[in-house]
């Protein structure tokens, strides 16, 4: 909990105690308090609020309450915070609720890169340095992310740029013109129209192609601790390069949705859309409340399907679950939810960081429960395995 609300400047709690300064000022003070509590209130929303209150009349507090709900909020999370702030601002008046999103328990940024000791010894030629670096990079590509030092992780984070995820595609109901395929009646008619109705060349068409949605579900429970940073960087890389669209492939830009699962479900897509990777990771850190908690994969997966997945987000999408399968909850619930996911999604990919290690057997209860409903079971502990994953997703 952070007591930011009390330090929110001139528009904070002082405004509440000063009713006489005019209604507009009080209302705007309320919007500022709301902003301090984490609801993104913009200038035009505040204006809409004032207009709505003016329409409904100032004397009725319930009306003011409802006007604010309609004009200042944009989602269920906002509504919850709105109720608390409203109560505190107009009724309690003894300070504002401290409901700003909790500060990150762990900050997922990397330590500063210490000066590289391998260089500057004076005896190596530049050529040798380059070769040494190249092989070092290659080694780093195959190293287990969890076993890396801070400096190595820092070096690795730069290498994520080498991953080039492309959105998987699907055929659509729409057509585009093509030099062979089916007859395109409408285009043929239009061409004939241009010649005053004389029969013209026949135009052809084929189904066009659109990107499929990619949904990433990242387990951030305690047992996945060492991989959380790398997986978030991977998610960021996915989001950025798929959003930008691959110019080379000539395909349209796609959509990547990211969630963290653990003890609860957190929607991270917004945070991942920040262009700068370290900023995106900090934003993710601020959003996710349950770093290194337990794993209730079945339950959170069920929640994901209820709230987002079944209604359309996972429908026909490529869903990637990053987890080691150490399930504390009921494995039969996990199996049930994986079956649901499998029915809704186009392809379900399970990425397990331990999969690539020697002697790994899929014996964890969670993995055993989920295994029948997985299309691809991949390793995910090093950059090289991430590259494999990118390939699998792009071809799904």
């Amino acid at each position: 909990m952070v007591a930011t609300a009390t330090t929110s400047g001139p528009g904070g709690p002082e405004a509440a105690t000063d009713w006489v300064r005019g209604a507009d000022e009080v209302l705007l003070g309320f919007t500022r308090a709301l902003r301090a509590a984490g609801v993104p209130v913009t200038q035009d929303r505040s204006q809409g609020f004032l207009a709505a209150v003016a329409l409904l009349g100032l004397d009725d507090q319930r009306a003011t309450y409802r006007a604010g709900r309609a004009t200042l909020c944009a989602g269920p999370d906002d509504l919850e915070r709105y109720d608390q702030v409203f109560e505190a601002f107009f009724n309690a008046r003894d300070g504002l609720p401290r409901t700003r999103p909790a500060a990150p328990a762990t900050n997922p940024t990397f330590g500063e890169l210490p000066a590289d000791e391998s260089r500057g010894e004076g005896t190596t030629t530049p050529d040798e340095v380059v070769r040494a670096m190249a092989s070092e990079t290659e080694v780093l590509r195959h190293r287990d992310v969890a076993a890396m030092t801070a400096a190595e992780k820092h070096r690795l984070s730069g290498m994520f740029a080498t991953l080039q995820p492309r959105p998987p595609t699907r055929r659509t109901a729409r057509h585009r013109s093509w030099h062979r395929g089916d007859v395109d009646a409408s285009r043929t008619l239009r061409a004939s129209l241009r010649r005053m109705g004389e029969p013209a060349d026949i135009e052809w068409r084929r189904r066009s192609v659109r990107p499929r949605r990619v949904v990433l579900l990242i387990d951030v429970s305690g047992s996945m601790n060492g991989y959380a940073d790398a997986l978030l960087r991977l998610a960021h890389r996915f989001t950025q390069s798929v959003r930008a669209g691959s110019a080379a492939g000539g395909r349209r830009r796609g959509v990547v949705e990211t969630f963290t699962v653990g003890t609860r479900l957190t929607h991270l897509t917004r945070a991942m859309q920040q262009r700068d990777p370290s900023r995106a990771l900090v934003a993710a850190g601020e959003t996710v409340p349950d770093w290194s908690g337990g794993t209730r994969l079945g339950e959170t997966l069920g929640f994901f399907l209820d709230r987002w997945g079944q209604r359309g987000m996972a429908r026909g999408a490529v869903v990637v679950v990053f987890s080691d399968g150490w399930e504390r909850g009921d494995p039969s619930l996990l199996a049930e939810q994986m079956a649901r996911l499998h029915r809704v999604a186009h392809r379900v990919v399970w990425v397990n960081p331990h999969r690539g290690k020697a002697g790994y057997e899929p014996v964890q209860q969670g993995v055993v429960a989920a295994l029948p409903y997985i299309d691809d079971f991949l390793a995910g502990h090093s950059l090289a395995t991430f590259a494999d994953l990118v390939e699998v997703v792009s071809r799904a």
Partner: protein
Amino acid sequence: MELDSTADVSARLGETGYLCDEALSTVAFLALRMQRPLLLEGEPGTGKTALAEALAESLDLPLVRLQCYEGIDATQALYDWDFPRQILHLRALEAAGGADPEEAEKSLYDARFLLARPVLAALQQSPAVLLVDEVDRADDEFEAFLLEVLSTYQVTIPELGTVKAATPPIVVLTSNRTRELHDALKRRCLYHWIDHPGLEREVQIVRSRAPEVSEELGRQVVTVVQQLRDRHDLQKPPGVAETLDWARALHHLGTTGLDLATASATLGALVKYREDAEKVRHALDQMLRA
């Protein structure tokens, strides 16, 4: 057709059989007065689409519906040209004896060959109610296009010129939250989250929407449905639409009071998953015994 207060809105909607709480009637009133689009979110089956229908009916305005889907684009929302009819027209001109080519071409892009798709139709017919259903299913490019239309209430057709609504249509957008809508679109709209109604209100809704169902049966049905919603283990908890379906189904079978046999036989009206049906049958057994 002026509505002066939230109570007015609520009364008018009530006449059409749509019962809403005060929060919803306030937002609807604000949307009408401020001429802002209304964005409704909430569980499926809570009456988001029905509100648009009720608004249109109570204000006696045409309802224009745009169903969104993945891959929808502007030509499916705005307008298209009717090519076969254009060709026929050309042939007719020809048969009538050599028309002036320039005149002929001009006559081709006439309003009568224009196929108005929902958005254009709403602008042309306005005042009207434009329902943009399940906007979260469309792609974000389409969202951007909607934003443009919703901020200017006009559409430009290169061959014909600009169509501007004399009065802006009343716009209702619904979303099931399969993805987060863009903030710019949300900012244009008034927002309301529709919850499932409480017991008494749902009984009222059943009474008003399905008056043929006896009061006793209606109350029993709603009580069961409300308990099912509280269970939280159903894949798809029944919405108000399902409550109505079930009540009507039972009524058609001549049931006056709930019993396990008819209830199980009509479960298909209430739940749509096999797993849910099992759970509900079990729960019903307990509820009816109690």
